[in-house]
């Protein structure tokens, strides 16, 4: 009974951790815009967590620079299971215009399984909401599978 209550509330409160791996800041601004009153992702329970240890959904932006690669792996390790990884924009998925650069070690797929990818450069806030909503559904499924 108590466990069910926790599961039901956790499904309605997915916490996001945002990691920037060398992004141009465009996607980061749009993600923050999603949390403002105009788009208000908190309607679905999304809340920006300060620490990866508190997060359910990890949003990755940027083309994974050599400097941030280690940090990305370390951060992803700290996120407790079940976790959902969302890539924001073109960069983390392919490197975008930076692909082939000596200092870029994309895609994120090399280091972790990507559950949802949001395309766009940058994605419109509405597309980000759509992606996060999809991620929350995947998170719910993963948690149900884990609790069985």
């Amino acid at each position, binding site marked *: 009974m108590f466990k069910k209550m926790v599961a039901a509330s956790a499904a309605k409160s997915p916490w996001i951790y945002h990691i920037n791996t060398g992004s141009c800041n465009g996607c980061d601004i749009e993600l923050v815009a999603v949390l403002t009153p105009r*788009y208000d992702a908190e309607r679905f329970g999304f809340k920006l967590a300060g620490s990866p240890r508190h997060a359910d959904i990890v949003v990755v932006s940027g083309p994974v620079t050599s400097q941030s690669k280690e940090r990305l792996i370390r951060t992803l390790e700290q996120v407790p299971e079940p976790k959902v990884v969302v890539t924001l924009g*073109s960069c983390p998925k392919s490197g*975008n215009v930076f692909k082939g650069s000596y200092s870029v070690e994309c895609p994120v797929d090399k280091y972790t399984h990507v*559950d949802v990818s*949001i395309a766009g450069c940058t994605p419109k806030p*509405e597309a980000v909401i759509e992606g996060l909503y*999809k991620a929350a559904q995947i998170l719910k499924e993963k948690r149900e599978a884990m609790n069985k």
Partner: protein
Amino acid sequence: MIPFLKVALSNLFKKPSTRNFPAHNVEAKPAYRGRISFDGEKCRNCGMCVKVCSPAAITRTEIDTPEGKDIKFEFDLTSCTFCGMCQDFCDEKAITLTDDYHMVATDAKDLISSGVAHITVPKGKLVCGDDCVYCTLCAKKCPEGAITVDRAAKTWSVDHDKCTKCGTCVSACPKKTLSFEDPKPQVVALDSEKCVYCTLCAKKCPEGAITVDRAAKTWEIDTGACILCGKCIDNCPKKALSFKDA
């Protein structure tokens, strides 16, 4: 106190400023650059979009068909910067960046826009007629940089190895003087000095178009029956046969 109260009261009866997004779809602003749509019917495979794409998000795969070529264009939206250069540079307006921004997928394959262009490659070479005014427009438009025009010296030349016969120059020419010439009709010709009248060519000809008289040392070909297959040329032991312009 009073103006402050006015604002407070008016805000109390205002609708919330939050957009009720998933319940009510929000249209993108005009000229928004979203999901790419590609019309293969219009494309003529000049390759300009591939050249101008800075993140190299466009891939072409060529498949040979009896009529010409089938070319599959794939636009990887997870690689695209949505700069719109491919759309701007497409002379045929085959590429459009639509206002569809709902580009969310769990599988990256869903984020690839693709289309197939059916291309008929002209057989003849590119030629320039007498009406040329040496405006250099064809050279500027050529995606391969195969055309060289010297305005001062009034010369026009094309590198046939580089030319892909896409036809961009033909439609760009203001004088309509560029064209692909018809391939010249050819015939099989004999070098009578090399021929030993062995009759091998006559035996190998699938149409029976060649008659050779060993005793009289004559060689004749019925050009109407000849299908220019080249079997006689390949089988001639003395290499006395060849294709020649009629």
